[in-house]
């Protein structure tokens, strides 16, 4: 039997092809003592097919809480007894958040709302917000506002939104255990529309929600099939009051195996550390991930929780000799 890392080297590193779902399962089952070797390979793959640059992004919640959906990991669902209260950011606060983000050297600013999909009020607020940001801040604007209609997709293109985030969240086979108010297929359809319209698609998910190793590999393979420009990888941060509030934190070894497996599944994609890295991997984890396939970070705070100080991440990138990807205006 050939060793899975040998196969990955020939297939992924040398040819730039993603690893199959079956082999991803093997990668995710590698023993702890082979993790350094695995991370090293994932890092080589990233350096070869993406380069040393790291994409830095800031995110902000335009509308927090009170979401009608029931994603079991989410503290912003209105269906659970979560302590998160519903609140909106106003336009000056939104512009200020974009400025804070730009100051770190970030090229991306993502506006997020806890909704099933945008209604007219939200579309208007986003339009106004984007105009105000574009007038004052030099940064690419991304949005994450739930499921879209084709008309809304077209509207975002026209507003100048260059990237849209909509996660698969979980493998197709596990999705019904995570969400009951909408389907995996509905999420998939929005992702396709976004991609077809020419916006960059940002699509990822969460791990550590009680899924099996096979389902973790399945999620990576399904994401690879969507060919997103960027994949944000979240580690479950069990939120009080949510159905997954009692889940154990994923072990840091499993988290690192997952990072590397995602890189081997998608050698060309921007792979971003999203939520939960501080909790799951601790301070050292950010470094290990950046040397194990990750080439993008969210700096500063998340939507409802706090991240590391942005400067710590920026300093780390300098120390690792990884330049921050600069703003490229695609006009």
């Amino acid at each position: 039997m050939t060793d899975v890392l040998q196969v990955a080297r020939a297939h992924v590193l040398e040819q730039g092809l993603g690893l199959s779902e079956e082999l991803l399962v093997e990668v995710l089952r590698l023993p702890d003592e082979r993790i350094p070797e695995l991370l090293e390979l994932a890092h080589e793959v990233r350096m070869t097919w993406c380069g040393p640059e790291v994409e830095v992004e800031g995110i902000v919640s335009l509308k927090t809480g009170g979401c009608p959906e029931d994603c079991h990991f989410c503290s912003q669902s209105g269906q659970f007894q979560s302590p998160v209260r519903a609140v909106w950011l106003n336009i000056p606060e939104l512009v200020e958040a974009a400025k804070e983000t730009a100051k770190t050297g970030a090229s991306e600013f993502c506006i997020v709302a806890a909704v099933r999909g945008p209604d007219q009020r939200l579309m208007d607020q986003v339009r106004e917000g984007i105009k105000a940001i574009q007038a004052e801040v030099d940064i690419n604007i991304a949005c994450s506002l739930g499921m879209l209609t084709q008309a809304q997709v077209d509207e975002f293109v026209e507003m100048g939104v260059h990237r849209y985030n909509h996660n698969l969240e979980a493998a197709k086979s596990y999705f019904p255990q995570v969400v009951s108010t909408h389907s995996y297929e509905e999420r998939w359809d929005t992702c396709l529309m976004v991609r077809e319209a020419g916006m960059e698609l940002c699509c990822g998910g969460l791990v550590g929600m009680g899924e099996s190793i096979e389902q973790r590999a399945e999620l990576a393979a399904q994401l690879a099939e969507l060919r997103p420009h960027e994949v944000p990888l979240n580690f479950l941060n069990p939120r009080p009051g949510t159905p997954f509030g009692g889940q154990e934190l994923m072990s840091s070894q499993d988290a690192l195996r997952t990072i590397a497996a995602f890189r081997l599944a998608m050698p060309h994609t921007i792979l971003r550390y999203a939520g939960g890295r501080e909790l799951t991997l601790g301070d050292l984890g950010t470094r290990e991930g950046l040397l194990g396939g990750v080439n993008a970070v969210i700096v500063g705070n998340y939507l409802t929780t706090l991240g590391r100080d942005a400067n710590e991440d920026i300093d780390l990138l300098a120390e690792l000799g990884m330049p921050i990807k600069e703003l490229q205006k695609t006009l």
Partner: protein
Amino acid sequence: MAYCGHCGEAVDARDHARCAELLRMEPPRFCTQCRRRMVVQVTPAGWSVRCVEHGDLSG
């Protein structure tokens, strides 16, 4: 301080060491004076919380 800002339970009711740890990674959700759920805004470089009764706090 009568209530835990993280879980909202009375400070004397139990040990809140874990809550204190978590409060380094998230803003408080409950007013420590009256236990009301507060309005919390998190932005990339900071956060602010407001209790309808006891006003603003930020970090």
